[in-house]
């Protein structure tokens, strides 16, 4: 159920009405709403999700007794097996098939027909994080299964994040009855929701048409066409995924619940480390806390730190999808992080550290990082490695000052999208001031007319077909 469909409008209005009308039954309202929301993806998917959640919940209770490590391992194993089976079994077996030259998949044809449960990658990470946090004593396990269920299944974030931690969401669920309706919070929620819808409906979906067209040409793309295709996708994936995340955060606010922001205008990052602090933030912090640091982080010397960085980013890539293109994308970002670490060290040794504060350095580094991220997205979007390599080699060998005819409008659009990204940065930074100006300068009837026009535009232009979000398939 996509957030901009008529059925979701009906669903959310009913849920909100019950939620605020019957505050003492809020927990039950959300329990039911989450079940209904997830059941739309399929009853069998719901049963699987509930079973995995129930087992994890049971094990989290057992973690307060003896043999904690065993229960933790069982919990992680069950969750990873679920993910591995549904998401990676075909990938693993087909690779073994190629490696050994044996027709393995012929003996297990059902593997090729497996349907990926919606949101499995996201809920698996949340469940593992919950178990680890309880094991490490960072979080007391909740003794109320309904609270646990609302935490893990809260519908705004269930399909594609943000990846929430128990310590952030469970206390909010425990105090649902105390949440008072606040017009400021509700307005903030509507603002995020509207911003997400505008990004998805008016920007991401329109870019998608051109991206699909370019990428369908694969190796026939010239160097400048490959640049345009890559840059368009760079913006498509940002506007698509940040749209979903903002809608999720917005819907959370409508219930008075705060979900974590996933994006902070990432294409204005000056280096790979900053990029990952601004792109898919809840995933990068998850990777940091539950993979990179347990592997040793930076505690065991530089060489080990770089290996850990590389491994963590490769796993992050694999988490996105069961294909080598995703793994290579992750490894590419791992390499970027290593190179940046070495570069930062060199700058420090040379005594050029202060140079990084100069605005020209910052502007150039943003431009460089933006293009490096763009090259990474080629791996992410391409159907296979050979197309990605072909596109990147065409990009790197073409005359950057020459554009094929017909590409000027795209170049102009890309410039516009980058300017829009900067505008978004400013709008976020000066949100309160802008809001104040908007409220004090524009009279209420005019403001309402603008909101109504936006609602009408969103209803009219919301896609009626089965358009979806890129991250739904992860």
């Amino acid at each position, binding site marked *: *159920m996509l957030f901009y*469909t*008529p*059925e979701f*409008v*009906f*669903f959310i209005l009913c849920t909100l009405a019950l939620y605020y009308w019957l505050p003492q039954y809020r927990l039950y309202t959300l329990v039911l709403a989450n079940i209904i929301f997830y059941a*739309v993806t399929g009853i069998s998917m719901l049963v699987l999700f509930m079973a995995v959640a129930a087992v994890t919940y049971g094990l989290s209770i057992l973690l307060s007794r003896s043999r904690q490590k065993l229960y933790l391992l069982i919990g992680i194993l069950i969750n990873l097996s679920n993910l591995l089976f549904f998401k990676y079994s075909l990938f693993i077996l087909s690779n073994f098939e190629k490696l050994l030259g044996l027709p393995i998949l012929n003996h297990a044809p059902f593997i090729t027909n497996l349907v990926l449960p919606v949101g499995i990658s996201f809920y698996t990470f949340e469940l593992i994080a919950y178990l680890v946090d309880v094991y490490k004593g960072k979080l007391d396990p909740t003794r109320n299964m309904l609270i646990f269920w609302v935490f893990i299944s809260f519908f705004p974030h269930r399909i594609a994040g943000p990846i929430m931690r128990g310590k952030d969401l469970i206390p909010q669920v425990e105090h649902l009855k105390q949440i008072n309706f606040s*017009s400021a919070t*509700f*307005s903030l929620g509507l603002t995020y929701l509207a911003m997400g819808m505008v990004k998805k409906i008016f920007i991401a979906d329109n870019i998608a048409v051109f991206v699909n067209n370019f990428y369908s040409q694969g190796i026939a793309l010239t160097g400048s066409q490959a640049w345009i295709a890559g840059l368009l996708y760079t913006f498509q994936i940002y506007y698509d995924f940040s749209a979903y995340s903002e809608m999720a955060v917005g819907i959370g606010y409508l219930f008075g619940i705060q979900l974590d922001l996933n994006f902070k205008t990432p294409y204005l990052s000056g280096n790979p480390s900053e990029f990952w602090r601004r792109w898919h933030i809840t995933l990068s912090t998850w990777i940091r806390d539950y993979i990179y640091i347990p592997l040793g982080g930076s505690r065991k010397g530089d060489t080990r730190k770089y290996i850990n960085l590389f491994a963590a980013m490769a796993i992050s890539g694999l988490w996105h999808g069961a294909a080598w293109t995703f793994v290579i994308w992750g490894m590419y970002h791992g390499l970027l992080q290593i190179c940046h670490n070495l570069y930062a060290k060199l700058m420090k040794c040379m005594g050029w550290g202060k140079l990084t504060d100069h605005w020209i350095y910052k502007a150039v580094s943003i431009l460089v990082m933006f293009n490096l991220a763009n090259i990474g997205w080629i791996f992410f979007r391409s159907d296979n490695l050979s197309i990605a390599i072909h596109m990147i080699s065409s990009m790197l060998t073409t005359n950057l000052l020459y554009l094929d005819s017909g590409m000027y409008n795209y170049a102009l659009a890309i410039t516009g999208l980058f300017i829009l990204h900067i505008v978004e940065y400013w709008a976020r930074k000066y949100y309160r001031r802008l809001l104040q100006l908007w409220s004090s300068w524009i009279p*209420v*009837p005019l*403001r*309402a*007319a603008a*909101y*109504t026009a936006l*609602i*009408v535009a969103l*209803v*009219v*232009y*919301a896609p*009626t*077909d089965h358009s979806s979000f890129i991250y739904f398939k992860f």
Partner: protein
Amino acid sequence: MKSFKYILVYLLVIELVLDLFNPSSAAYSCRLDYPIIKDNPSNIDIVLENINREIQSQNLTNYIIILGDSVAFSGPGPSSESLGYYMQQLSNKTDSKTKLYNLSMPAMQTGDIYTMLLKLDEYHISTQHVILNIIYAGFAERTPDPPAVFWLQDDLQKLDYSSFKQANRNDGSSAKKQWTQVVRKSMENNLALFKYRDIIKSGINKKYHYLRYGTVLDDSLGDSRPWYYKKDLPQLLATPEYQRDFSAKPFDMSKNNSQIYFINKIAEHQKNCHTLIFLAGTNDKLMNKEVLNPGYQDNLAKIDRYLASLPIQYLNCQGMIDANYFTDHVHLTGEGYRQLAKILWDTYNQGDN
């Protein structure tokens, strides 16, 4: 939140205005607007509502409904070179001033045509005068594609459940509906903003095109040049998907064939009405090998015998239009449709006498 009350009032006004100034005429111009209907077949209801209003307000009694697939729709050319347009021109020259409504859609199957007749009843639009188009391929075995009801499954389920079951027995498709679809349908039926959104969007796009380029947006569906300019066409028509349309395998002419089942239902529905069924002709120059196949000829003879036996006026258009006026194997150029319109107009009026 101060704005909330105003927003509610504005939205209410928009609802009322949209219902009052029903913008559905944008979805019909000599024929249905294919992009609007294709993405959401329930938009047909909006067009039917509008036709009903027009009939009521103008007290129309003399009108003909055209139903059929892409041939009656008149693809791939523009609506200004369509069957409905040319027949209306012919009608305007007579004293009768008969109004023509072309409700055909590309890929419309006989199951859809039958459902459309039921929908016309539902909207109190008379089916007293109807022209229907069928093609040879409709009688060929379905595997299970194309389904016997392509566009209007939901409507058939509602209007004639036993026929719906019959169609799905043949096609194996499912009738299960999720609550989300029910809610969506209900909101689209009851809230004008949701109901007319495709039409508003299309209207904005057309207006934008006009303002930007100073011309009316071309509603052609494809290349409407004659077939002999299209080098890749013979290769395309040799693919199994198209070869099925000229199957020489003996047709099953019993009720087990969904085509026969629905034509019988149509004949039953059109009892005491003036109905003309025309079998669209095939480009016998381009499809020479297929058309001359004895199996094809046998099947064609079977179709002729069967349709002639029904209490409905029947016309086989094979060979009536010169091959030069075809854009491909069955579709025509603007001139081809003009000639077809003349043939149908004359034939239909002869049937009246």
